[in-house]
């Protein structure tokens, strides 16, 4: 049985398709890189100026001039390119990144995202998150469905300062997958063993349930 983190990563990795240019956020999203099958040819972008992140270097081959946005030593794959930060964010802001997978603190039913600061705690800064949510063609947020106190992170409205308004396309939690459409927030998949009612119980946001999921659930019943 998968841990909740493994469940999120496994499901999120299915978002990555052949030929895509993808930006993976710092933290859990970075782990997705290990899940990309070798049959798929993808360019991972690092906002500090690299298109085509490769695996971590072998011990002893670390290179201070070659890091990712999380400041980890990395390598560059064949066909990679280096560029400055203005060019990097031209790619991001200009809509050239097919997919960005980012961590979240809260997501609202309108697709608002909060993931950069907690009032009262020290401000660290938003880095490239505000640019990414405005620029990438598809924004997938991955996060636990509830916090360590059991409170939902899927909100009617964000209580934390937002990173962007109406920017989330898909939310993947350890319990469910939601899409944000012009008709509102839609539950499309259940991950793990919950029922639709279980998901409703741990979700403050209002959402509808996709036809496909309803049919699938009734079949399974």
């Amino acid at each position: 049985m998968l841990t909740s983190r493994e469940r999120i990563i496994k499901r999120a990795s299915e978002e990555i398709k052949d030929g895509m240019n993808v930006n993976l956020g710092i933290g859990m999203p970075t782990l997705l890189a290990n899940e990309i099958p070798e049959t798929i040819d993808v360019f991972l972008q690092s906002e500090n100026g690299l298109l085509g992140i490769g695996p971590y270097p072998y011990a002893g081959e670390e290179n201070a001039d070659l890091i990712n946005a999380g400041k980890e030593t990395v390598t560059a794959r064949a066909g990679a390119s280096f560029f400055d930060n203005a060019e990097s964010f031209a790619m991001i802001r200009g809509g050239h990144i097919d997919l960005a997978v980012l961590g979240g603190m809260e997501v609202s039913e309108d697709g608002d995202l909060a993931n950069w600061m907690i009032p009262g705690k020290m401000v660290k800064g938003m880095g490239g998150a505000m640019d990414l949510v405005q620029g990438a063609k598809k924004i997938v947020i991955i996060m636990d469905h509830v916090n360590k106190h059991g409170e939902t992170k899927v909100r009617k409205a964000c209580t934390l300062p937002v990173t962007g308004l109406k920017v989330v396309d898909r939310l993947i939690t350890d319990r469910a997958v939601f899409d944000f459409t012009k008709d509102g927030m839609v539950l499309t998949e259940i991950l793990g063993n919950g029922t639709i009612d279980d998901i409703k119980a741990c979700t403050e946001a209002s959402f509808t349930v996709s036809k496909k999921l309803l049919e699938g659930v009734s079949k399974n019943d």
Partner: protein
Amino acid sequence: MSAKQVTSMSEIIDVIKDGDTIISGGFGLCGIPEKAILALAEKGVKDLTIVSNNCGVDDWGLGLLLKNHQIKKIIASYVGENKLFETQYLNGELEVELSPQGTLAERIRAGGAGIAGFYTPTGFGTEIAEGKEVKEMDGKMYVLEKAIKGDVALVKAWKGDPYGNLIYRQTARNFNPLAATAGKITIAEVEELVDVGELDPNFIHTPSIYVQHIVEGKSYEKRIEKRTVRKKQLN
């Protein structure tokens, strides 16, 4: 040839005065102008406004200037790696302006390129947009962000020539070419100073026009912030 080349950073660092705005290249500790920062820390100029994506760590990079209480204000996108920062910020010694990373890069580029301001979607509807002009263009909302210029820009390159043409290596490029354009005076430090004509004119990252002084640094430390490796696979 007009001489831009100096023999040591200490020879030129005096162009920086108390109260100056300094734009520094680097991302984390990668590609930072480490010789210039060391010279600044030694010289002890005060009340600096620093424009840089990050602010170093407690004992390296721009963190050294924090340690010395030389910084009055910082404009950055992420300062989470530096604990001194927190202390000085909380006791009101340090003023902070957070700018999203792409916006920060673009503001510096704009400063160098004579663009006074630009409309970006980044930060619309967030705290970052508070007090800024917003405008709807083609059905989308944008925030007006303004250019940043520096009294001095500090840049670290891989190789340079005596005219100030520069090339950077891999992700150590980051903010350096942008900073280079936006200083009234730009000081470039390089790992290797090569003869005029050795750099291929087709592949110059920073054209000489942006650089006023160039110096070759010795034995760069190039500290690694997060050493991540994989195991060598046995054949």
